[in-house]
């Protein structure tokens, strides 16, 4: 029923060019779905008027879940009735975003029946985004997802769907099993993931090494990034082989080492591992010759987020090195402690990173009963405004806790 597809002279311009065209995708879907058709219509108007026509989403959802659906209504419902509702469902992806054609086809079939036929593979948190359906379709979609064992992802002030790099499944540098950890954590925290009860959202992302292929340090309240404690594994011959094949080891490798801890005499590459900051560069450029050490684990960092509202943050070191082995009690204990304090004291819409800055890292560590370590800071304080917590009273020789 192609007649359902409106004229879209502006959008048609976006069918041209070498990059895959989302307009073509919507048009394909529109062949079957009036909803996709009206989406085209409304989008064409946005392209003409240079403004979006979506209203603030109301609360819609699935029975027994507090999150996972983003309600969306059109401001042009009269003109485009088929997108009067255009909610999205966030479906928890399998760790590592691996699929079989079989599994994907099942999802497609559900979405053909109950939705616009449009998706995002994936949302930038990592979920499968089923893009656009009506309120009354939410339950049916969920019922069918259940049958194929796909569950809903996070939204609102809850644990958001954790995600990870593919790690050991296809990468020689993975310092721990990112997919296993991500899956286990997701299962362990199903309630927190599905029922918003935090001051604000909380995201967990797992990368297998400091290359950080899921950008966890930039966009996860907890970033778990693989690293190693012992020496980089070096295959000396393979190094010479790289040199022989024309790599300028001095320029390309040694001079780029941020720790200035490498030496190359034309024959042997020496690494002063005690100064190596595990940046990965030398390993990245000589994958056949160098490998991370054998004593592997991860650095746990806390608090990254986008700018709203106190300014963007990168995660900062919280545990310099932890072994990542099942059962993951050390990690879940830490997560639980952090949540306890944050849920207790955090303001509404205050991310954990902002919270820690407000109360002070030192005080936060006290609250979760953790000792400070120098790895947590890039450098100690520069200002002399130290809150010394004890002082002597005249009457006593004893150092007294000031009551605070």
């Amino acid at each position, binding site marked *: 029923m192609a007649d359902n597809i409106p004229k879209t002279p*502006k959008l048609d311009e976006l069918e041209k060019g070498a990059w895959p065209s989302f307009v073509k995708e919507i048009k394909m879907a529109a062949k079957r779905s009036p909803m996709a058709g009206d989406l085209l219509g409304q989008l064409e108007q946005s392209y003409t008027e240079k403004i979006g026509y*979506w209203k603030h989403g109301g609360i819609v959802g699935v029975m027994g879940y507090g999150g996972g659906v983003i309600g969306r209504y059109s401001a042009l419902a009269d003109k485009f009735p088929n997108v009067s509702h255009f909610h999205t469902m966030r479906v928890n992806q399998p760790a590592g975003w691996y699929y079989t*054609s079989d599994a*994907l086809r099942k999802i497609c079939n559900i979405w053909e029946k109950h939705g616009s036929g449009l998706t995002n593979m994936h949302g930038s948190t990592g979920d499968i985004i089923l893009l656009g359906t009506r309120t009354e379709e939410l339950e049916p979609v969920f019922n069918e997802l259940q049958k194929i064992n796909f569950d809903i992802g996070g939204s609102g002030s809850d644990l958001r769907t954790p995600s990870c790099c593919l790690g050991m*499944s296809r990468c020689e540098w993975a310092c721990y099993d990112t997919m296993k950890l991500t899956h286990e954590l997701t299962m362990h925290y199903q309630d927190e993931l599905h029922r918003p009860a935090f001051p604000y959202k909380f995201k967990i992302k797992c990368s297998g090494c*400091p290359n950080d292929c899921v950008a966890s340090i930039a966009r996860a309240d907890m970033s778990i990034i693989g690293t190693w404690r012992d020496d980089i594994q070096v295959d000396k011959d393979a190094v010479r082989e790289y040199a022989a094949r024309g790599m300028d080891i001095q320029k390309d490798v040694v001079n780029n080492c941020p720790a200035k801890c490498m030496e190359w005499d034309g024959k042997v590459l020496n690494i002063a591992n005690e100064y190596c900051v595990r940046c990965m560069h030398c390993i990245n450029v000589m994958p056949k010759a160098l490998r991370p050490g054998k004593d592997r684990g991860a650095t746990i960092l806390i608090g990254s987020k*986008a700018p709203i509202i106190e300014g963007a943050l990168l995660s900062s070191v919280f545990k310099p090195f932890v072994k990542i082995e099942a059962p993951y009690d050390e990690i879940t204990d830490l997560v639980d402690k952090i949540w306890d304090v944050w849920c207790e004291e955090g303001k509404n819409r205050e991310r954990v990173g902002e919270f820690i800055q407000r109360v002070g890292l030192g005080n936060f560590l006290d609250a979760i009963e953790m000792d400070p370590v120098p790895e947590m800071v890039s450098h100690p304080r520069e200002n002399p405004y130290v809150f010394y917590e004890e002082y002597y009273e005249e009457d006593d020789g004893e150092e007294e806790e000031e009551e605070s």
Partner: protein
Amino acid sequence: MADAMQNRRTDYGPPHYEQFLPPIIKENYGKWKYHEMLKPGVMVHVSETDAKLYTVRAASGRLLSIDKIRMYCDLADKYCGGYLRFTSRHNVEFLLTKKENIDPLIKDLDAIGHPVGGIGNAISSIVHTQGWVHCHSAATDASGIVKCVMDDLIEYFKETKLPGKLRIALACCLNMCGAVHCSDIAILGIHRRPPKIDHANLKKMCEIPNVSASCPTAAIRPATVGGNPSVEVIEEKCMFCANCFTVCPAMKLNDPLNDGVSIWVGGKVSNARHEPMFSKLAIPFLPNNPPRWPEVTEAVRSLVELWAKNARKYERMGEWIERIGWPKFFRMAGIEFQKEHIDDFKHAGLTFKRSTHLTF
């Protein structure tokens, strides 16, 4: 409802990934030894067992119809036992064990409009967000600009002729769902006009105290306007973050006349060489000019090429600029340095140049 809840499963979580892994990965899980790029978009991972896994990465628009997903499935069935995955930048990857299947697969992918590439020193897909397709906050469209920019930069996706990786991201408003704040080049939708307040309905829709509280610069104060209890905005104090709109629909920031795009450069995420860095403001404003956003594609291309021409091998955009210094960057890029470039938020003073390390 209660019983409805009883006889219904919840919280069973995502399917276990293992059932989706091809046999070769199950067998060599954690045993990979090294990898090599065979050609643009194609790499091989070699295991300690000498098993070889070939990955073919194809561009994907991320916004996919079920029809397209089904086509992916057909190709996966045809060439690699039905196994495929998506990447953290939303490309699609096919996992092959038969080397001879690589070229036919690439041919088929090209045929359905999905070029292969993005591996190594290339530009990969642009991480992006919803824009006018689905979000109420958007100051610009997401998919449209991404399409235009990548059409223009396609050669850098298909080939690996750059000094290092270049990561582009787009977010359609300051919420930055694309987490663009650490990208080599970030495209950010912006508002430039204080909220237009729907005084008649604000009280109905929102808690006035919450609305005032939502403003990072305390620009919002309660006020009665035209008899309605509402709020007013001190315009000089507004920097258009739209946080008030997020908490209250009656604070409308979207505005065709003044919305547009800003360009940011020099961010990175990886710890390779330099520590992760935020992106910094390069171009304060470019107009929303759909459907092809020529000003934006032009600006991005010239930034990419300036870097490609001048950076040393492995130098990411931000590493290069840090070496030559921002003054040189602005001169080379021909961008006028303006008041907007100077930080004036909380930690502004720390961005001032507190040394004489200057070039002339």
